């Protein structure tokens, strides 16, 4: 399998001398093409910091991050912009849709920036909207659709550029459980049908159970890794157990 993301000895420190906080501590892992990886951990474990550091948003203190073989930490200015546009897709907790554009235009926005021919745009639009089940909403405005649909629009926007990897930061955080389940099903479709590589940060075990593999982070370091082997139900139970372990209690390690 082709390695899409390689993270080596990544550390992040905030603050100065006396009150230094080590948010990430020597993290190394890699993600293969077509994987659906989850990052879990308690609040303050450094999940979002890690995601920001590996998705070109912030600069880590030390370490290397390679996406598709390119060292993203050495990039500057427009190189980063081009890289984000062509290789990365983002899904955020609060959707971040343009209120002034309708659904179709929101999804097409990244392609328009890339000056893609109209015919190709339409083709891709049909494809992603059918995968995500929003092909009936194209002329609606964001404030006229449900939260679940909003997040699917955001997912479509991330997917339409055919990115090497999609970063999702708590995508179900603002959704009710039904919409969340729907969204995750659609994201699984993206992962299976389009072979999209997805990296998702969440603190919700149910959400995480849709992944193939989950990295658990505690106090800025990788605590353990759980890989899905059997059914989702069984995977879910293992995630719960692991979470309990990290939390310091639970069924496995007794009081």
């Amino acid at each position, binding site marked *: 399998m082709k390695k899409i993301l390689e993270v080596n000895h990544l550390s992040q420190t905030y603050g100065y001398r006396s009150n230094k906080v080590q948010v990430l501590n020597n993290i190394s892992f890699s993600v293969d093409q077509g994987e659906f990886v989850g990052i879990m951990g308690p609040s303050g474990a450094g999940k979002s910091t890690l995601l920001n550091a590996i998705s070109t948003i912030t600069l880590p203190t030390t370490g290397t991050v390679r996406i598709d073989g390119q060292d993203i930490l050495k990039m500057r200015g427009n190189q980063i*912009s081009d890289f*984000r546009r062509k290789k990365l897709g983002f899904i955020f907790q609060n959707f971040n849709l343009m*209120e*002034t554009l309708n659904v179709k235009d929101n999804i097409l*926005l990244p392609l*328009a920036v890339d000056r893609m021919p*109209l015919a190709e745009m339409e083709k891709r639009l049909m494809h992603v909207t059918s995968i995500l089940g929003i092909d009936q909403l194209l002329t609606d405005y964001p404030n006229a659709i449900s939260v679940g649909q909003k997040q699917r629009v955001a997912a479509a926007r991330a997917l339409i550029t055919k990115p090497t990897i999609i970063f999702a930061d708590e995508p179900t955080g603002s959704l009710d459980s039904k919409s969340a389940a729907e969204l995750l099903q659609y994201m699984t479709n993206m992962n299976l049908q389009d072979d999209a590589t997805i990296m998702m940060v969440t603190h919700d075990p149910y959400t995480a159970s849709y992944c193939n593999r989950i990295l658990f982070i505690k106090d800025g370091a990788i605590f353990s890794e759980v890989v899905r082997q059997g059914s989702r139900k069984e995977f879910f139970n293992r995630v719960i157990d692991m979470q309990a372990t990290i939390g310091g209690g639970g069924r496995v390690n007794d009081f």
Partner: protein
Amino acid sequence: MIFNLSWKNFKGQFLNYLVYFVSMTFAVVVYYCFSAITYNRNLTNRVEQEIHIDGAMNLGGILVVIMILGFMFAANHFFLLKRGKEIGLYQLIGMRKEQISFLFFIETVILGALSLITGIILGIIFSKLFSMILAKAMFLQVESLFYISIPSMIQTSIAFAFMLLAVSLRSSWLIYRYQVSDLLSKKRKKTAEIDKVSTLSICLGILGVVLILIGYILSYNVIPFATFLMRTAFGFAGFLIAPIAIMFICMLGTYLFFKYTMYLVVYLLGKSKSNYYRNLNMLALGNTKVHIKRVGTTLSFVTIFIAIALGMIGGAASLYTIGMNSVNITAPTDFIVAEMDFKKVTQVIEKEPDTSINSSVTLNYKLTGSQFHLKIGQEVNENNVSPINILSLSNYREFQKINPYLKTIDLANKQDIVILDSIQNILGGFIQYGSEFLLPDGIKLNVSDVRPDYLGQELLRYNFPTVVLSDEQFDEIHSGISYKLMAFNITAKDEEALANKLSESVKPKWISPIFYQYQWRDNQLEGYTSSTSQQAEKDQEFSEESEQEYWQLNYTSRFSELSYERREMGLFIYVAMFLGVLALIITGSILMLQQFSEAEREKERYDLLKKMGVPKQEITKLVYQQNSIIFFPPMIIGVLHAAFAIYVFSKFITSSGYWLAYLSCGLLILIYLAYYFLTSAIYSSIIQGKDR
């Protein structure tokens, strides 16, 4: 505890407070400067003898207060918007709304007091600058000091306290409306149905452009339009109604333009798919639609305000040149003196040291009756019977040597005359003479030309029209009376002292009355002009037939005329420019503050663009594009409106002073360009996060 919290907040949001503080200080400085000039005894004392400077200043003061109030409201709105979270927090910890309002009130008072003190100190420094400019505009030799005026400090404080109270009331009202939920969840923006364009709004959009165009066409043809109105039921009032009607049409058109036309244009631009899906065009167009919905009304008012401010400067400029030109009309040479007082005046002048009379010309006028046609506007055709002054061509040419404003006159025939008409000086094109003048004894004269009158104060010539004719014809006129005026120039060291001394020893007064009575009978002009009354007893009733009496002014002095006009017009133009430029600066500031509020709201959107991989340059381009929609349409339409308004002025009043108005238009463009670039740069820095 609460004040402690508030103090912490202050430290955290220092920059916001600074912006607010600077805005308020600016308001105080402007007001103080204005009021300091009103109370500047040094300056006004010299003027007061001649002009009521206070009247103009008070009116200006009211306008300044209105403008500053508008500006402070905008600044306060921006400030509160930035502190929405803080208000929500106070409510969340259980503070009552009265308490929050009180807290904000105390804060406003403290901040206001600080900016009042800073403003007054800066005002004292700047008012020196302003009074220097004013003295320059009025051609006064005044030593301007750092003038600390207690009354104007009090006035500024009172006015500012009043403005702060108004602002505080408004912010209390906003706090009362504020819901805690605003803090927790973002307000749902009302952007429904922004895609649809109803038939009505298409019609209104087109109507907006049409109205503006009609306004422009009417103002281009203002004279025919005014004449047309005069022919209708309005009568002579049509003359005044015409500009008001044009102004109203343009104002309505402007409102519709910003509310509907711009929206329509954006909508149509979005129709082209290949253009729409290029770069950030769709985002630019989508944002613009929402912008126009939100700020359309503000923009239309700003535009109208700009146009009025520029028009006002244009009007003031034309009045200024008329005023200055009137000196050349009424006193083309240093002195013009009636024969009777010539001796007295020359004695006074010769008594002064270092003063001598340079060149002197005696003007021999004849005053006799005439009958002629007069056309006012394009309507009334009047048959006039009145005395006219007659000057011979050789005498005119002699006067021309010492009077630089007189143009060369050539007469081809003996009967040809040239009318010198004072109305021609100002209201060109509104008065037309018939081609014939009939004098007593059957003398018939042909009008060959009508010229502006630069022969000096009309009152010296009994306020009658003057014609120039050939020497032969002049000698043949024996009816009426003749009189002499002496025109001369002097060289003097201190003209002011001379003028003062002269006005003390020879008082300006009415002298040498004449009496006349003319009638048009059997195609003949009958009647007389005489220096003694020929009617035994005066009729109580005034009728065409009865004898009329006119008096003559004894002399004019160029220096006193000139200093009067300079002071009056200098003050006038200064106040107009001050207010006009202030209006431009304040509207620009209001738009700028509005854009900053916008930047705060839109920060997240721009952040998304960055994460989506839109290059920084593209985002910056988008920011500049969005700001250009806010700044350029008001600028362009405002300048166009003003240009046409000045054109209308120039049709009504001939003046060469319109360059000042066009200069102000240029100034507007400069000020707005500066605001545009400044706003865009700050906007960019607000939306650029710290992230890569």
